[in-house]
């Protein structure tokens, strides 16, 4: 049979993941604007559709109707490939993320590694986009993005190493399975492994914000100083794809935080586990991500690097050593 079940499964997952990413990208923008509105005691979008629910469609239409200009002097190939290089890895990361006991596209043994491998292509896309634009401001801001990403990947990976030491596996499905049975089993509260687990979660969360270029670390955009920074030259949907990539990355980051620290699809009280718990935790984290954006001003670049090199990395290292000592003792 040509249409064997494996192929159908594959198609279903491709459609599912792309749809999920597209819907999230569209409606996270809506959520962001609503939440920002309420924090500033406004309403946010409300004109297009009930509660402004059709606003993302309107925005999308507007972006798509804009002319796709390729400015003179840009590298035409890099310029066009860059948005895709940001978007595709973000979608690829979903392949190994287990949404529930059964809902996973590919249960890879090196799932965690795969997610990080894909995630690191994102910054390459940004750099190439800026380089291809032949705009020195874009290149400068892309350079800042790269140094920021390098700076924050280190503490993040140290935390991941700590986690892998605790769980003893790179398989995301197994990592969740090890945490099932109530919130006291979750990695964020695994005090038998290290008393610093909540701090580790905090560090992971901060690094995730920096990796996805979210405020207060949004140096890639810095729209008030750099006019969209690394993607200044992008018109219409080219810019839109970068934006969708950013939101897809937020979903990947919060999903990872959910899987690694908050027990994935596990219910806090050990009852009725399932995909709904995964989604609840993920969206709660996304809410926090947006909440953070509308609370703190953008950091300076020095503040950003200092935070990583002077605080996050030493603390993460200390946590690593402490965890290995604790694992040895107990």
């Amino acid at each position, binding site marked *: 049979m040509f249409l064997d079940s494996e192929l159908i499964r594959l198609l279903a997952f491709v459609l599912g993941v792309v749809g999920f990413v597209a819907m999230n990208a569209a409606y996270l923008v809506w959520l962001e604007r609503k939440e920002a509105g309420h924090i500033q*005691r*406004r309403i946010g979008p409300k004109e297009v559709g009930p509660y402004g629910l059709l606003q993302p469609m309107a925005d999308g239409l507007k972006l798509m109707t804009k002319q796709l200009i390729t400015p003179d002097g840009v590298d035409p190939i890099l310029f066009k490939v860059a948005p895709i290089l940001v978007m595709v890895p973000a979608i690829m990361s979903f392949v190994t993320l287990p949404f529930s006991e059964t809902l996973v596209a590919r249960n890879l043994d090196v799932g965690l590694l795969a997610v990080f491998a894909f995630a690191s292509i994102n910054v390459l896309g940004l750099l190439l986009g800026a380089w291809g634009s032949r705009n020195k401001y874009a290149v400068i801001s892309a350079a800042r993005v790269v140094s920021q990403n390098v700076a924050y990947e280190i503490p993040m990976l140290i935390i991941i190493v700590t986690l892998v030491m605790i769980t003893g596996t790179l398989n995301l499905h197994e990592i969740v399975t090890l945490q099932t049975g109530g919130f006291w089993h979750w990695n964020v509260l695994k005090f038998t492994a290290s008393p610093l687990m909540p701090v580790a979660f905090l560090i992971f969360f901060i690094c995730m914000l920096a990796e996805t270029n979210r405020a207060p670390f949004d140096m890639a955009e810095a729209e008030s100083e750099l006019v969209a920074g690394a993607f200044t030259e992008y018109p219409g949907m080219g810019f839109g794809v970068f934006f969708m990539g950013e939101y897809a990355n937020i979903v990947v980051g919060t999903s990872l935080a959910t899987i690694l620290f908050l027990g994935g699809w596990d219910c806090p009280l050990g009852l009725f586990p399932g995909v709904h718990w995964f989604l609840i935790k993920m969206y709660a984290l996304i809410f926090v991500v947006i*909440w953070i954006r509308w*609370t703190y001003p953008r950091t300076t670049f020095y503040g950003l690097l200092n935070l990583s090199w002077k605080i996050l990395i030493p603390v993460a290292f200390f946590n690593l050593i402490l965890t290995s000592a604790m694992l040895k003792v107990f």
Partner: protein
Amino acid sequence: MTAYFKEIISGTWSLFVGLGITIVYFFKPVVTLQYPHETVPMTPRYRGHIDLVWDEVRGTNKCIVCNGCMKACPSNCITLAGEKAEGGKGKVLTQYTLDFTKCSLCGLCVEVCPTEALEFSKEYNLAGFDEKDYVFDLLKRLEAKHS
């Protein structure tokens, strides 16, 4: 060394305090005015463009066509005309044009009017695409308002 840890702890704490403040605001009711759908009543001292005053007793405008406002206006925005009243004495206003594009809202016209026939309107929804939209026929406006 202690300063380093103190800074981390106080810094982290201050970040959480900040989050606490914004979440309180998140749940507070919305205070903005939904402008095109809602409007505020303007304060009595608000100076919109000038407008003719309606005389309730006589059922017409209060203007006696003395030309005081036209002469007082430093920007020459007022053009008015009147004709001899039928039967009675005095004049009646037949046309009163205000070129609001030139008006500096100085209020001299309102001050000078002997019969208090002019006032500042409370109109602030004044946006348009054409300069000509701002040449108002105040007499027509007044009559339209009271017919």
